[in-house]
């Protein structure tokens, strides 16, 4: 049952990422790659989540997403932004923003603080992922001669 749910979620994030690729006007021929990156990122996040904090799993998923984005960018000779921006979307803490706003409104400020801090931690995890992978030398991504 769990594995069915995981596969189902992979396709949901695949299609969701492609929808965002369209909103950012990514050229049509790259839709498939964007979807694959978004799906893999979410899969990685979901598979690691039971064994660690959301910080760790977001960080590792972000590393995977950015690594794949750079790989495809080099292979397809196009800017890395094209893959990265849509691919990172499933990891963006939209839920955190909502729950923080919700608890502030319902005056449960301790929960709001905890949720807000959690959101910030996830954002920092993405930042660290971006910083780390962009330090990798370019030749790691090029085809072996």
């Amino acid at each position, binding site marked *: 049952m769990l594995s069915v749910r995981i596969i*189902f*979620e992979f396709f*949901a*994030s695949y*299609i*969701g990422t492609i*929808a*965002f*690729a*369209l*909103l*950012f*006007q*990514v*050229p049509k021929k*790259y839709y498939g790659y964007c979807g694959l990156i978004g799906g893999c990122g*979410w899969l990685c996040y979901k598979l690691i989540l039971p064994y660690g904090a959301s910080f760790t799993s977001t960080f590792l998923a972000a590393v995977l997403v950015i690594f794949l984005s750079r790989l495809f960018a080099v292979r397809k*000779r*196009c*800017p890395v*932004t*094209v893959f*990265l*921006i849509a691919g*990172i*979307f*499933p990891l*963006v803490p*939209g*839920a955190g*923003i*909502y*729950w*923080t*706003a*919700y608890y*502030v*409104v*319902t005056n449960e400020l301790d929960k709001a603080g905890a949720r807000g801090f959690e959101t910030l931690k996830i*954002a920092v995890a*993405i*930042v660290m992922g*971006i*910083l780390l992978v*962009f330090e990798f030398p370019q030749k790691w991504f090029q085809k072996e001669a």
Partner: protein
Amino acid sequence: METDYNREALDAAALAGDILLASGAEIFRVEETIDRIAHAYGIESCDAFVLSSGIFLTAGNEKEKEFARVRHIPLSAARLDKVTAVNQLSREIENGMHTAAQAKERLLEIQQMPSAPRFYQVLASGVGSGCFCLLFGGDMVDCGAAFLAGTLLYLYLLYLVRGRLSKIASNITGGMLVTFAAVLLYHLGIGHHLGEMIIGSIIPLVPGVAFTNAIRDIADQDYIAGAVRMLDALLVTFCIAMGVGIVMMGYHNIAGGAVF
């Protein structure tokens, strides 16, 4: 003749920079592309200084005629198709495939490239909302409701607002609209998890481009541009939260507390 040619090349380089910056490319890429194009046409003295909202470009030394250009470029929506096209063109220019005049003509064409039809964008916003609602734990009915709310959001942004409202106002009202739609659908019995429905349908507003670019600019040590883009991202996030919060507050006062 020589100076005319230089002028044309610098025009092309500056135009390429304009398009890239307006379409949501990183500062590093904008500077690099301007330098690449200028060097490809044999201009040694070109110097570009790029901020998130403007490009300053000068050239000129003992041998080359002076050239200066300052362009203000407002923050706008991401157009990754244009970024890709300019990137491709700058590679071709480096390989000597275009004269400066041809390159400029091609850049003007890229600048006029049509965006995806609005109908598709509305649909994409709905599909994106639905999918993300599923990812955050909603069921199929919630997904349908988020699809409706997400579609409504882009109908509102593309047909009603059309850039006439400020960014702050359109994000607050967008957040309000989505929350209101979700609450309404929830009360009509469409959808079981109000939270997940709202989360899914605010995702199209979330400033992913500004946030990602801000981090990358800061990583490239373009601190000013990075800070401006980060401020943009934080402000938009805060506005969405405000929009959601305002409607939720009203909802709680009328319906009297959490019902889910």
